[in-house]
């Protein structure tokens, strides 16, 4: 029998490493690893309750359905499911996508859609198509932590616009656009997660949606609307997506099956005006030729059964309950100095602590209590967000949410008390204050001219 190949790549000597370092592209300089990433490695320990993930709950997907679909694919379409496919994706996959978008009131042209390897690839391809080194990309503050490395790897200059409880501050956006225009610059696009934003959980109000679309039209500016969570609404009236308000002239839309079906199938999509789509398709061809044909068949079979809406509705039930549990636990266990968002959908709550608590450091303390969250710093390109954290409620069981929030609350309370002792503001451990429900909104972010308490 031949020797099996050596299982691990030999590591390099320092000298070799320097040789490689000289070959690295300039963009690798801004592809940063971080202390936080190392800390996150510890969150994978089985004893850690991780509220740090962004995982949808895939445990309720019926195994019988899964098995039946895969069997049908094997019996009826094996050759095609194992073959390359068109770069744009199968037409049947696009039909499924049109159903999903139709459920939120959008009616894009079939030819304007490309199937991608997750929504993440759609963001990457959009950047690949539009961004040269040094170009400005505007996004929310905080923004989706997974978008930052994409922008950075294309060497974009990222400008972040503050959010409040109604989402991105459009007045601030206008001011920034004016400022940029003065130096003859124009952002390549404005990136937004308008519904149940990751990480903040806030939703862009209807008025601001209208204003943003209008602004894009006036200034001939592209908006990238990333909408993974739109169908995961727990209450209140649905708001029209930016794509619908705009009609698709200045809005590039990014969607995904990850949160309504499965992230493991890696299926997302982008919708763009034809000239932009043409370039995106060429970019995708260079990247991976086509999206997995096997999982496209999976989606086709799944939609053919006609139960996808019921499944999404069942997820909404689970997530609504978990959000409520997390909100109750925050009330009970977080000190009065903390505040947090109350999302109407999605997967995340964003909690903000007093300014003197750096959540990256707090994570170290929390990990000693076997609990984890995402430090706010991950959602910013600058020094902001250091006193905030993202908490996920979709991927963790009810009891784990309660216990996880209790443990984090304890570490926060200890730091609040310690700061009091350090600054001479002596006080008893503050009794968690009960917030009046439904009276006044919780303002998650600093308002203009106002400091966080």
């Amino acid at each position, binding site marked *: 029998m031949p020797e099996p190949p050596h299982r691990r790549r*030999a*590591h*390099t000597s*320092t000298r070799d490493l320097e040789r490689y370092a000289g070959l690295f592209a300039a963009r690798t300089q801004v592809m940063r690893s971080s202390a936080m990433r190392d800390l996150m490695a510890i969150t994978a320990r089985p004893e850690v309750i991780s509220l740090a993930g962004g995982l949808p709950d895939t445990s309720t997907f019926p195994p019988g359905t899964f098995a039946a679909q895969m069997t049908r694919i094997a019996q009826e379409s094996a050759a095609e499911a194992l073959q390359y496919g068109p770069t744009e994706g199968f037409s049947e996959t696009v039909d499924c996508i049109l159903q999903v978008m139709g459920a939120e009131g959008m009616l894009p042209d079939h030819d304007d859609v490309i199937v991608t390897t997750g929504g993440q690839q759609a963001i990457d391809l959009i950047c690949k198509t539009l961004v040269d080194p040094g170009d400005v990309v505007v996004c929310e503050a905080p923004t989706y932590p997974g978008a930052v490395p994409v922008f950075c790897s294309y060497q974009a200059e990222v400008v972040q616009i503050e959010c409040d409880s109604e989402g991105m501050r459009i007045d601030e956006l206008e001011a920034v656009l004016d400022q940029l225009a003065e130096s003859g610059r124009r952002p390549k696009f404005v990136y937004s997660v308008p519904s149940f934003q990751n990480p903040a959980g806030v939703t862009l109000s209807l008025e601001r949606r209208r204003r943003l679309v209008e602004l894009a039209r006036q200034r001939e500016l592209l908006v990238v609307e990333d909408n993974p969570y739109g169908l995961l609404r727990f209450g209140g009236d649905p708001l029209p997506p930016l794509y619908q308000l705009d009609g698709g002239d200045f809005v590039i839309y990014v969607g995904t099956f990850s949160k309504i079906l499965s992230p493991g199938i890696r299926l997302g999509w982008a919708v763009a005006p034809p000239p932009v789509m043409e370039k995106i398709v060429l970019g995708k061809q260079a990247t991976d030729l086509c999206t997995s044909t096997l999982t496209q068949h999976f989606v086709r079979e799944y939609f053919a059964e006609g139960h996808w809406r019921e499944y999404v509705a069942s997820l909404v039930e689970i997530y609504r309950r978990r959000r409520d549990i997390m909100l109750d636990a925050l009330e009970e266990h977080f000190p009065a100095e903390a505040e947090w968002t109350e999302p109407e959908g999605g997967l995340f709550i964003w909690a903000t602590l007093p300014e003197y608590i750096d959540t990256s450091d707090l994570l170290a303390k929390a990990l000693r209590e076997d609990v984890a969250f995402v430090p706010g710093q991950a959602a910013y390109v600058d020094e902001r967000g250091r006193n905030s954290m993202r908490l996920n409620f979709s991927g963790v069981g009810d009891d784990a949410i309660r216990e996880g929030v209790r443990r984090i609350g304890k570490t926060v309370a200890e730091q609040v008390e310690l700061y009091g002792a350090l600054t001479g503001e002596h006080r008893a451990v503050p009794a968690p204050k009960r917030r009046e429900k439904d009276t006044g909104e919780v303002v998650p972010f600093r308002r203009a001219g106002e400091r966080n308490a």
Partner: protein
Amino acid sequence: MKVAVLKGGRSLERGVSLRSGARVEDALERLGHEVVPLDVGVDLVKRLTAERPDAAFVAMHGPGGEDGTAQELLAIVDIPFTGPGVAACARCMDKVLAKHELREAGVPTPDWFAFNETAFRELGAADALGELGDRLGFPLVVKPSRGGSALGVKFAAGRDEVPEALVSAFSYDDRVLLERFVDGRELAVSVLGDEPLPIVEAIPAGGDRYDFEARYEIGRTEFECPADLSESEAGAVTEAALGAYRALGCSGFSRVDLILGEDGPQVLEVNAIPGLTDTSLLPQAAEAAGMSFEELVERMLQLALPAVAGRD
């Protein structure tokens, strides 16, 4: 030889340790040893007893692996291990303890004051902060006493920044120190079997501090080895480093971190088990001394064996 590589564990430096460990495993395999990788957990003793390796290569960083805990267990099950012994590890891991030892031995180290949380919570130590600031001067450095890789290290530019820095440092340990900031060149002297290796200078790119990111990211920090020092500077730095190594009772190997300021070298800390990742300083120093990574690993292993080891 059958060598167990202890790595990972529960410390905050788990990621760094896994990288060190993987690299050591490769080197040991290339050297022809039988490697038993051990991600350290509750079954450590059981696995060591079952495997009965001839030696253990400790590639763990931070509390649990670098503080003497794992070493104590290895001593109990009677397996020779790399690096310093139990007491030296314990002294190196605790910066406050280490600084007392250094000062007693006449090794220069920046002035400091140490506190535990109780002092602030129950004894009103906050009232002394103002005076401490005046005595140490600003900026000052706030560090957790036990911790590595610059985690939780903050600089306070003025009095009002001290409480916030303390809150951060106390996230890592219940004892912290406030240390006089010494402006100067950042140097590291690795000692291998009582012999100093060439001095490494860390020059962070773009004026960054040599923080966690700068430490482990290729290209973020430039290293010069041997450092460009005059003969008398190099002599003073080496002398201080060897003094620190001996004062803390190290054996096998360790790395001494220093600042070379206007008034000569000051020892900041001694790392009982320095990193062995792609960007770590000890492998660079060994290479400058003409040793390949394999030769370095083999030498570290030889130093662990009973015939050579003279440990406390």
